[in-house]
């Protein structure tokens, strides 16, 4: 029982990371109906840049905003190079392929800059576990949960309460109408990509102290976060948190009871099942396609 509680706690922390990355998918999907297939690589770059900054002697807490800035910049680059030309020529194939291509480039550059081996990310908090409900909880895990929730709340607040957020929401509802109302929708889309990569980079530095950091850390995380985004529904904020936590717990328990080699399987299988049965996600609304 104690082990199970333990697994659930780690699962929740992991799940919140998935939720944050999935949140990034939602942001770009909301404004432009596109997704960044290199989202996982944005997370990886964030973690590695954070590691370098910490290595240079920058304080962990000071490093976070810097990494966020870097993430925003990286997202904007992805949008300008990979997504905008594809939106212009209305090519779905185009943006899928170009964000994949950019993801590969980022990963390869990271391999050349930081090397192929996984690196240890120093933990900013004490590594001795706290005891809670009979299970051990790392302070870092609590930070992950709190950080993830704060991040999502901040973006939601921005979207709902500020005039810039209204522009984002308007673009989501009807891109052409928003454009005609004088909103620079191109800029809004760039902004959403910046925000999306920012959250991914932030997730990267949150999770890095709990796992190892390396060029290959992003790919599977990105894919599983997509599973979470689908399970939760691409338009539901509550959905991704629930979806993330479900997946996180499924994963830690599979890893413990079955084999760590199989730990990625439940998420992927869940993705396949949800898409086969209910493509709009468990929390999303089914939209009727107009002919």
């Amino acid at each position, binding site marked *: 029982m104690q082990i199970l509680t333990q697994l659930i706690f780690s699962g929740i922390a992991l799940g919140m990371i998935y939720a944050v990355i999935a949140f990034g998918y939602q942001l770009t999907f909301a404004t432009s109906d596109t997704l960044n297939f290199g989202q996982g690589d944005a997370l990886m770059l964030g973690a590695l840049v954070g590691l370098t900054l910490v290595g240079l002697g920058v304080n962990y807490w000071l490093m976070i905003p810097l990494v966020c800035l870097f993430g925003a910049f990286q997202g904007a680059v992805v949008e300008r190079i990979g997504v905008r030309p*594809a939106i212009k020529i209305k090519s779905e194939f185009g943006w899928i392929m*170009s964000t*994949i291509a950019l993801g590969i480039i980022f990963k*390869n550059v990271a391999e050349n800059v930081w090397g192929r081996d996984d690196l240890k990310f120093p933990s900013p908090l004490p590594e001795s576990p706290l005891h809670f409900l009979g299970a051990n909880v790392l302070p870092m895990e609590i930070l992950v949960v709190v950080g993830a929730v704060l991040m999502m709340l901040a973006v939601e607040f921005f979207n709902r309460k500020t005039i810039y957020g209204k522009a984002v929401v308007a673009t989501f509802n009807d891109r052409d109408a928003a454009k005609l109302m004088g909103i620079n929708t191109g800029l809004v889309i760039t902004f959403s990509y910046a925000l999306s990569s920012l959250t991914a980079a932030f997730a990267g530095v949150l999770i890095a102290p709990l796992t190892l950091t390396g060029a290959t850390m992003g790919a599977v995380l990105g894919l599983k976060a997509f599973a979470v985004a689908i399970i939760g529904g691409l338009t539901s904020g509550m959905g991704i948190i629930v979806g993330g936590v479900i997946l996180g717990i499924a994963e830690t328990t599979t890893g413990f009871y079955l084999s760590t080699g199989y730990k990625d399987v439940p998420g992927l299988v869940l993705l396949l099942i949800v898409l086969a049965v209910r*493509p709009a996600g468990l929390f999303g609304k089914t939209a*009727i396609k107009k*002919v």
Partner: protein
Amino acid sequence: MKRRHLLLAIAGVAALLLFPAGVSNPYYIHLLETIMIYAILLFGLDIVVGYTGQVSLGHAGLFGVGAYTAGVLVMKFAAPLWITLPAAVLVTAGFGALLALPALRVSGPYLAMVTLAFGTIIQILINEMTFLTEGPLGIKLQKPSLFGQQLDERDYFWLVAVLLVLALIVVHRILRSHLGRAFEALRGSPVASDCMGVSVYRYKVYAFVISAGFAGLAGSLYAYSEQYISPNSYNFELTVLFLLAVIMGGRKSRIGSLVGATIIVLLPKLLDDIEMFRYVSVALAALVLVTAVVGIQKGRASLKQMAIPVVGSLALAGLSFWLKTMTDWRLSIFGVIMLFVVYYLQDGIVGFVRNALNLQRPKAQVQDLALAGGDAVSTAAAGASGEFLEASGVLMQFGGLKALNDVDLSIQRGTIHGLIGPNGSGKSTMMNVLTGIYVPTAGTIAFAGRSLVGRTSSDIALSGIARTFQNVQLFGEMTALQNVQVGLHHTFASNLFDVAVQTPRYLRESKAATQRALGLLQFVGLDELAFEEARNLPYGKQRLLEIARALALDPQLLLLDEPAAGLTAPDIKELINIIRKIREHGVTVILIEHHMDVVMSICDTVSVLDFGQKIAEGVPAKVQADEKVIEAYLGGQAA
């Protein structure tokens, strides 16, 4: 023209078969062998990517399934070649079907993610199921023996070459057949495919299964070729390489697949050898430059269009002299090439060359086909006149909006029934409900005694309801003739086997379909434009083509959604004649139209909708004088 192609093909095959005789270095033989194996996979991948227009990131996984099927069969049962190859094809095709199941409901980015997840799962399973696959250790196997003879490197090369040629022929035949047209139609317009009786779901699965079969064949050949297989070969990088090969070589082209395979096999070797890479990149830049100059001279391309590929290839050449070693930057170079291809070389190398040299896409050979005597429009089965389509109490609700509110509609057999009303009154919604695109919230619809509610669009289409679309839904990249042939899909009973070996049954059906399609084009006056791509036709002609395509379904009931929109006055006259002739064949017509002169001159009965409700019905003259109708169109007096 055709003979020249044949000679070229024979020369190519001969050169391929003679290659090991001339070159004795096993390294080069193995390299060419790998290219051929990849090409077999790419033929299959092109079906999914090029024809149905879906992104598959799962083909490396399928390739691995094929390789491991052969590897495991050899390791556990010492199975001979004639068992392992077919087994690999079948098992992988099965996995393809499994992959297509979640893909049934989704497309585009979702499908890409599904296939990526699938590929990842395969890799994990190969790694973890050590009892079957030996896990990370991998499996060693020998070159196979055939007819009691142990094949050496050179014999095996010939085996692969023969299979490549066979695969090429089979793929080519499939894609030229009604199956290939169905795949292409999915990409052009899924809705229209369904309404032509070509079930999008079913053919998407077929495409994946056939594609997976080829991946399985390629995988098993690869296992023998390398004589060692391990899980890490079938990773994300490989799947991206395959996609790159398809789009870079050129979609919808077998030559493109061959070119693509050559590039992805040779490119990594090139990058290992910086000297060589420098020569090749310079040669490439020169080639692109020459093509561009020729293209501009022939007036096929503008300076601006050509500038980017030229500058790009020059930059690549420059980069090769700048970097000391390329191997570590291999993936980045692939990524850059991919970006370049996606935006500037959308038609791939084959398309680019074809464009620059002003070559046409090879056209299906249809000469010497005399038009079938008689009429191409089939006569609808005669039946007792009377109620034919009976809709009652149809309610279609979108959220709070009632697009159709308790509408009754009864259509008499053999009549032209007009459906009019102001914009947004629910006419097109009615069409969509009748053809199964929308499932009505409430109400019943019976057609020829059977309920339509809840049946799929393709099922309804096959039971005799054809339609055209308000916003034209043609298969843009297909010719006018092919568009009509998609409508004739239901006349084919041939299966994959018939197509692959071109049985008499398939040849007969194919010839009949071509003749009928030409006849139908003549019926609407488009026979001159049969080989023009649908997207290049003027708007008015596109509408006529939609009618021809709908008639190909041999419908009992034809739904025309604003057929006269965008037509010139003489064209409208022609259209009225066509609709009259359609009725003479016993086909019942429901006509939505805003041109009142059209409606009033040919309709037997007219129903008027306003805000989702039927406000009037009767003979045209009576409806025209109806107070409520006038009010709906012109607005009532302010109360």
